[in-house]
């Protein structure tokens, strides 16, 4: 029996996650340069290792490199969030089975806690997790291990940058800690923002080792308790816990940039209605209801116009009924519309979310109880039909008009793992 075990923290993330998802499910993309474009096909947001090797940069606007990508025979894809979301769900569940606690940090990143074995060597465990994930999903992960979150993050960076590490690095068990910390620039440390890093650099603090060793009072004077905590974590103390039950989402947002700016009220209303339908659907799938509905619209950040407006409606009873929500959103769109501006982005937010099971029944009288039953079964039916047949098999007339503003998704791959009509085909 082990008397006490030392807990270690690991940061696991998937390498080139979006591109890997596409490559694992589509044989044509294997070993080929692949880039993924942002919403609206604007910029490059992910690259396969083969595309990195061609020195294609992150964040480059697509139109600028279109010809070059063509010449290099790079596969260009719109972002396919139903695929990435499904692969992420699989990834996180597989990781969850290999650790004690998990905090899902982003779509492709998780902090986990594990106990250190008696020989302190976590490399065999890490190698087995890595090969498990590769075998199950065809996705390569990087594992950084340390005593706490900040050091696990640093270890993960080191695992990526040191070729011989084979995707795994344990900062807590290395003999040359100082050498490794020196390789991490201050602005690359988790929790160090732009302002902090420029202050540190003005003080001559350039890397993680120097930040760890800076006079404690100096850091507290400038950065307060946050800075002290950061330094303590760099030294190996554990200050930030794993948050295994992150608070449930406080709001649901659906917002998009338009492919061409909107100037007409009719178009703005239509766009907001489309997003409202989607947001209501999302709420129902999570058994949530909103009692505060907000819409917003803004002009482009890059245009000389600078206008943004939002409006909201507080409700007595929370709702997830698309009909109710649409009525409100149509009214709100009139409130934020202004004919003098060209809108480039708009969205709806469902706020003050509550779980349907805790819905306050006391305020509902008999008549509305009946209406509620009717609305619930209508929404259920619509959701069922859309799931069964096609995303928009049934929708509201307001969305059916030509949508000139809708997002470009010219290179969308199929929903290979989430839609039975789009699963891959085996040729022979």
């Amino acid at each position, binding site marked *: 029996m082990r008397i006490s075990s030392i807990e270690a923290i690991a940061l696991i993330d998937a390498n080139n996650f979006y591109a890997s998802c596409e490559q694992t499910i589509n044989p044509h993309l294997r070993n080929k340069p692949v880039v993924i474009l942002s919403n609206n096909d604007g910029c490059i947001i992910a690259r396969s290792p083969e595309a990195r090797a061609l020195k294609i940069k992150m964040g480059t606007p697509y139109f600028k490199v279109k010809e070059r990508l063509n010449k290099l025979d790079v596969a260009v894809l719109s972002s396919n969030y139903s695929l990435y979301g499904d692969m992420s769900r699989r990834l996180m569940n597989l990781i969850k089975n290999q650790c004690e606690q998990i905090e899902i940090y982003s779509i492709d990143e998780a902090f986990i806690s594990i106990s250190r074995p008696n020989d302190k060597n976590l490399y065999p465990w890490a190698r087995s997790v890595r090969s498990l994930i590769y075998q199950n999903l065809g996705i390569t992960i990087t594992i950084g291990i340390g005593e706490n979150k900040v050091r696990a993050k640093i270890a993960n960076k080191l695992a990526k940058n040191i070729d011989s590490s084979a995707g795994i690095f344990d900062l807590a068990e290395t003999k040359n800690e100082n050498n490794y910390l020196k390789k991490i620039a201050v602005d690359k440390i988790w929790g160090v923002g732009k302002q902090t890093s420029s202050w540190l650099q003005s003080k001559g603090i350039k890397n993680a080792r120097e930040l760890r060793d800076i006079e404690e009072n100096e850091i507290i004077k400038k950065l307060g308790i946050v800075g002290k905590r950061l330094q303590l974590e760099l030294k190996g103390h554990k200050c930030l816990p794993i948050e295994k039950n992150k608070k449930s989402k406080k709001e649901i947002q659906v917002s998009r940039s338009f492919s061409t700016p909107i100037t007409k009220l009719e178009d703005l209303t239509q766009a907001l209605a489309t997003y409202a339908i989607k947001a209501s659907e999302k709420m129902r*799938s999570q058994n949530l209801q909103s009692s505060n509905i907000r819409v917003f619209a803004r002009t482009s950040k890059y245009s000389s116009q600078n206008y943004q407006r939002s409006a909201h409606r507080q409700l007595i009873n929370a709702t997830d009924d698309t009909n109710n929500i649409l009525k409100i959103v149509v009214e709100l769109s009139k409130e934020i519309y202004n004919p003098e501006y060209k809108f480039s982005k708009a969205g709806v937010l469902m706020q003050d979310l509550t779980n349907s099971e805790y819905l306050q029944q006391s305020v509902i009288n008999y008549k509305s109880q009946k209406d509620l039953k009717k609305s619930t079964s209508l929404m259920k039916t619509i959701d069922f039909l859309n799931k069964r047949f096609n995303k928009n098999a049934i929708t509201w007339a307001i969305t059916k008009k030509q949508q000139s503003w809708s997002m470009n998704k010219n290179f969308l791959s199929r929903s290979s793992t989430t839609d039975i009509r789009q699963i891959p085909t*085996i040729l*022979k």
Partner: protein
Amino acid sequence: MDFSDSTTKKFKVPLLTDSVSAGFPSPADDYTEESIDLNEHLISNPFSTFFLRVKGDSMINAGIKDKDLIIVDKSLTARPGNIIIAMIDGEFTIKRLSIKNNELYLKAENHNYPDFRFKNHIDVQIWGVVIYSIHSYL
């Protein structure tokens, strides 16, 4: 018709009226909850299971026909005798992993298709093991 499924929890409506107890409870009440869920029976590793669609008749002798739905578990290690999905030169292929003279090869279950030898190809990856095929008779 009931449109509820496992992902949408039933909306709970509290009993506002006095409850009425009359007669005997149905003897079947305790048994009505369960129904057969194919997911549960066909899929043991849900996070590594994928669906694919077969096109063509290369596996006809193994009972896998054109348009069949294939359930593939990527977590399983392929063994000789298994039907597997491979990625070969940019295509998905379905074959039986076989062994002859100490050499692994991929066998089509149809005499009109040649066997596949690994050494003739540059880019081969065994992608997953086929655990079920589903054929529609309609």
